[in-house]
């Protein structure tokens, strides 16, 4: 999973997008293309604007300036519901609804859209196998299952409607190292198999390198560099890139990716 793959046309485009918050964190005018059927990783230290960029792409917040285009059509409130059915979203702690069982969480949207029962259960079965989740776990409530299992359920829920786009906001951020490594492997396998357009947010360079085709490094609301890990190491755009790469490598025991 390296940058060796041929580039494809962008499915999602941020054109001159900026967003300012009272609290300080902001996104300065950025342009960004998300390639179809590739995994793009938004990378950077806390407060760099990577989560803001993700929320803008999901339409959870609206940009102050610029446009977000999905297949060249602007993302607006009038299309929001339709568009969201084509997007899956996984947040850091899973965002599972505590009043529903894991299974009910997964089935929620399909049931709301009145899918036939058979289709729902087939899809759930498929996804459970994909994410390696036993049936017994699906019968439980979110507060009865582990963090790693929660993320697997959240992934199932996000994939239920077979969306074109999958967004993950630090999906592994709250997990202990062993579970995290496990899930990283599984995510890589799942992304590979599904060939979906994935946008993943993380502050972990190794994770980004392991999962992503394209890495986008942000600092203080600006895109510093886009490319592969090799690009970052061999042709750093500025000293911050080098600092960021070095800082992370110091804690990695393995060889550079």
């Amino acid at each position, binding site marked *: 999973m390296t940058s060796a793959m041929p580039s494809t046309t962008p499915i999602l485009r941020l054109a001159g997008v900026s967003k300012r918050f009272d609290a300080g964190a902001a996104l300065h005018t950025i342009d960004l293309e998300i390639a179809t059927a590739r995994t793009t990783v938004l990378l950077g230290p806390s407060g760099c604007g990577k989560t803001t960029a993700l*929320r803008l792409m*999901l339409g*959870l917040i609206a940009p102050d300036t610029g446009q977000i285009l999905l297949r060249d059509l602007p993302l607006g409130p009038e299309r*929001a*519901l*339709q*568009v*969201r*059915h084509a*997007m899956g*979203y996984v*947040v*850091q*702690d899973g*965002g*599972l*609804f*505590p*009043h*529903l*069982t894991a299974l009910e969480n997964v089935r*929620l*949207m399909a049931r*709301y859209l009145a899918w036939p029962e058979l289709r729902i259960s087939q899809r759930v079965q498929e996804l459970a196998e994909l994410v390696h989740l036993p049936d017994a776990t699906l019968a439980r*409530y*979110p*507060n*009865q299952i582990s963090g790693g299992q929660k993320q697997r359920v959240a992934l199932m*829920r996000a994939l239920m409607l077979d969306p074109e786009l999958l*967004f993950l906001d630090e999906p592994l951020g709250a997990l202990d190292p062993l579970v995290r490594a496990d899930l990283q492997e599984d995510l890589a396998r799942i992304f590979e198999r599904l060939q979906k357009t994935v946008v993943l947010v993380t502050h972990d360079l190794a994770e980004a390198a392991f999962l992503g085709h394209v890495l986008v490094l942000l600092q203080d609301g600006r895109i510093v560099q886009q490319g592969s890990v090799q690009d970052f190491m061999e042709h750093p755009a500025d000293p911050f890139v080098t600092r960021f790469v070095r800082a992370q490598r110091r804690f990695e025991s393995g060889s550079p990716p």
Partner: protein
Amino acid sequence: MNRSLLAALALALFLLRAGTAHAEAKTLRVASKAFTESVILAELVTQLERSTGIEAEHRAGLGGTRLVWNALVGGSIDVYPEYTGTLLDEVLSEAAHRENAVRPEAVSKAWLEQTLAAHGVGMTAPLGFNNTYAIGLTVARARILNISRISELVQHPELHFGLSNEFMSRRDGWPALQKRYGLPQSNVQGLDHDLAYRALQSGGIDATDLYTTDAEIRRYGLLPLSDDLQFFKRYDAVLLYRLDIEARWGNGAVQSLRRLEGRINAEQMIALNASAKLDRVPESRVAADFLQQRLGVASDHHQAGALSTLLARVAEHLFLVGVSLLAAIALAVPLGVIAAHRPRLGQVVLAIVGVVQTLPTLALLVFMIPLFGIGTVPAIVALFLYSLLPIVRNTHAGLCGIPSALRESALALGLPRGAMLRLIELPLASPLILAGIKSAAVINVGTATLGALIGAGGLGQPIFTGIRLDNSSLILQGAIPASLLALAVQGLFEIAERIVVPRGLRSGAQQ
């Protein structure tokens, strides 16, 4: 959304009001205030009307002059006993002052009738007794001193007076009385009324103030001295009635009222009060016996069994609480939802229901009489209003307390707003909403006892009758079931929590 809700509420209230007004139109409604004499007089009227074939009911023990008068003028009752002094002092005081006539004697009968008629109210001639202040001695002591009039007290400066604190301080009380009669007594002390009666009996004091028809006059063998200089205002008992009762029930309805004119003297009223208050004979029995003996009217008074009475009271109570609570839930949950989704409007909504909560219950009840009359409807409306705050506040808090990660997850799934509310937000807020409904219900069970003051029945009826008759067993007959009911409601909601609150949200579900 909120506008249509308000419209629905207004419609519901209108229907409720129209429904009850229609149901009550055929029954002549006699009311009394919350003291024994008033209840007995109203009972006499009710039974007398019934004896002529008119369907009549007695709404006993309503909470105060202003309330009963408003109910009469507003048309939710038809007849009630009143005193001329009270009429001039409280009810028509402004008009009477304008007439420059503070003393009832100075007001012409024609003026009074005209003023009442302007309100659509008629008045009978006095029933025969004047329930006013008097100075009383024990009969034995009065005989030894050989006095029967207040003016004769002048010759006995050594007498020790024990007067109620209220009488001591009233403008028309002791100081004015002393001046008017030139009373020389200097040994005068303020006492609690009940203590004064006992002190009289034991000889600790020689004289006290009393009301001329007090039951205690008979119990303690007292002699009210006659007010020979006519110092005290007259409180002649009369019956007030709506002038339209003649049109609605025929001439006979007013004729029956007139049959009581001049038929009850002070001694007889004392006896009636004493049998109800001291001998604990039910007022309906007291009234029936009087009608039988004095007017030769056989009336069908019936005393329901204790258990069936209790059950009826509990049923009335549950009806008040249940209907008001359901209506409150129907309005308060949507209001809470609106408040949570529109923070600025929410502040206004919360402020309004908060203010409603601070209104004193009795004030609210009186305020609602012109709108809803008396009885079940205003009681339900009041309980409904009091239930709003806990439910609105908890719904609002429950929805606002949903973590933003969950809200965004739901949003990102592409659930429309309505489905999000129904499938995600309300279930997540359900523990708090239910807690709000529970506290509203428990408070309602207690507050509903006040419904008895506006004729709504319920467990407040025995409580207030018990207070009036100084009968603690009667008080307990209302208070104990009311407390048990509150506990039962609490328990019921704990069961409801198990059903309504999703399993994943219960504290016991953690592994």
